[in-house]
């Protein structure tokens, strides 16, 4: 646990070591959001908050009118096999959301490449991940075949650059 906290600190996460957010891996230039997060159902009824959580069955498009006022959208992955959160992230980034987009829950090493590609810029795994292993996984594939929210140039564009 301590090792993970150190790695989060290196990445610029401002969270104090005693909070759960210490295990959050950051890929953001700006500090991680550290305030309370409300579920979507509460957010729509009382919208005085800058952070909201989307569960797998929630419609990410419900947030589109509110994106400018949000600093964190946390997308829950109760089970890694449930891939709805990838579409939620892609929709939010395509709509122009530029704040923190966090994948939280059953986030495993072998999903981080896909999560980064669809636009997640922080990861809150229920079981801490080794930052070095995450970075190695992210560096492994030199090229990508399709455009996505991460802005990497797809192979077809490199070929015809």
């Amino acid at each position, binding site marked *: 646990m301590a090792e993970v906290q150190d790695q989060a600190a290196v990445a610029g996460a401002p969270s104090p070591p005693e909070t759960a957010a210490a295990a959050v891996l950051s890929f953001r230039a700006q500090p991680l959001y550290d305030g309370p997060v409300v579920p979507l159902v509460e957010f729509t009824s009382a919208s005085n908050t800058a952070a909201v959580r989307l569960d797998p069955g929630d419609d990410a498009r419900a947030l589109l009118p509110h994106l400018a006022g949000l600093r964190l959208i946390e997308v829950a992955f109760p089970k*890694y096999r449930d891939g709805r959160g990838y*579409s939620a992230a892609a929709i939010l980034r395509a709509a122009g959301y530029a704040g923190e987009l966090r994948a939280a829950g059953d986030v495993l090493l*072998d999903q981080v490449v896909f999560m980064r590609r669809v636009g997640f810029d922080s990861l809150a795994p229920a079981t801490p991940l080794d930052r070095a292993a995450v970075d190695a996984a992210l560096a*492994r594939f030199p090229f990508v*075949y399709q455009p*996505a929210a991460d802005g990497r140039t797809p192979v077809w564009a*490199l*070929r*015809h650059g």
Partner: protein
Amino acid sequence: MYSYDAYDQAIVDARVDEFRDQVARRLANEITEDQFKPLRLMNGLYLQLHAYMLRIAIPYGTLSAKQMRMLAYVARRYDRGYGHFTTRQNIQYNWIKLAEAPDLMADLATAEMHAIQTSGNCIRNISSDQFAGAAADEVADPRPYAELLRQWSSFHPEFSYLPRKFKIAVIASDTDRAAIQLHDIGLQLVRGPGGNLGFRVYVGGGMGRTPMIGHVVRDFIPVGQYLSYCEAILRVYNRYGRRDNIYKARIKILVHELGAVEFTRQVEAEWAEMEPLGLDAPAAEYDRIRAQFAEPDYDLAASDGIDRGDPDFALWLDQNVHPHKQPGYAIATISLKPVGGIPGDATAEQMDLIADLADRYAFGEIRVTHSQNLVLAHVRKADLYSLWAALAEADLATPNLDLVTDIIACPGLDYCALANARSIPVAQQIAERFASLDRQHDIGELKIKVSGCINACGHHHAGHIGILGVDRKGEEAYQLSLGGSGAEDASLAKILGPGFSEAGVVDAVEKVIEAYRTVRTGPDERFLDTYRRVGDAPFKAAVYG
């Protein structure tokens, strides 16, 4: 044929490295079998009854001779000297050792092959028409579009954890040799009103325990936009496909529950959002790929005449050879269904021979069919006799294409951990029962398909005669269905009545076939057409009466 550039090769090589690392972590017990399972499955590695099974992708069923030699090498070096061609136009090996699997993947990569996404809840290998590029009736070669789909779907970040597996097939003829209406997405290349190329899009077909025929969700999507359109279909499915029940998780259930009209409306709405995002590859990329599927260097002086003097050769010619769009050429199908053999199996020696014959007679190219045979797509008619003679020596010239002994069978309980019953012995016994070629020709076109469980890998729902293995109080039993078709006249086979023992189902098939011979209007009326004309009453009477 498509060949990798440095980008493709780098991606596949990276995958080999990643897999090697994953296997090392598993062998060192750094990760549990539970954690390893989804990783190995994404690389086509299943734990079966006796050993690991590896499924290798053969994109759109097209292989070079060099790749076929690699498959022969894999069979010798890592397996027991043979491999099994599947109904997804892939190949499976049944006796793989986990510790050797990374080296195997590295060897495959040297021949531009991989096992990426041959399992898991992701977009699987793209299938296509085995006569692509050679068929006289196609509007254009569908394989460049299939290759673009292969690239687009490889490691797609949004669609790697779908509710369930996802299968796409692409054809370019009105004659459907790839069963597109039984796929999650079926794409038929057509010419639009102005003569431009586009796709007719079918969604929601499938087999398994709830077989369904696909719906047309769009009559025409221009080829320049089919990737983003597929992306919209996948997104609707990823967001709203059922995840509460593995048996209701395929897209066909979503389409069925929403209704095709509402599903189509949702896809169109999603596509309106996605189309402007620049998801489609530029025409230049399509052109680059298409150039690699250029017409072979045909012999323009090739003769159209064939010497039919050898009666055995003439039998093969009439049954296993199809017309080619190029004068002087023909399409030859190599049967992997010798009577008594295992459907779809080939030995390493046979693979090497086929690779050599492909080099000598067919521009070094081989196709795999969804009915588990192989095809040499461009053979000079003048070479057919020599080709046939060489195939015959290796037991590869059985003249039974689309006849009663050309049976599709899944691996079944002889190998598969999911199976309820054996498939292979049933197929073998039926083939032996009808071994007489005279009898086979008298019966005519008849597609028998055998699955060892409800998952329907043996396509029994699409069989003119379908056989499904079930578990009946701990005993293997078999249900008989009639009237299915995976072709352009797609239909689902209907259960005839109570099930049978292994011996009983072979007898029942024979009774069904004899009843057909009695009620058909003549030898030209196929079994399927007779069944559609008269219904199941005469067959019920023959089997149960």
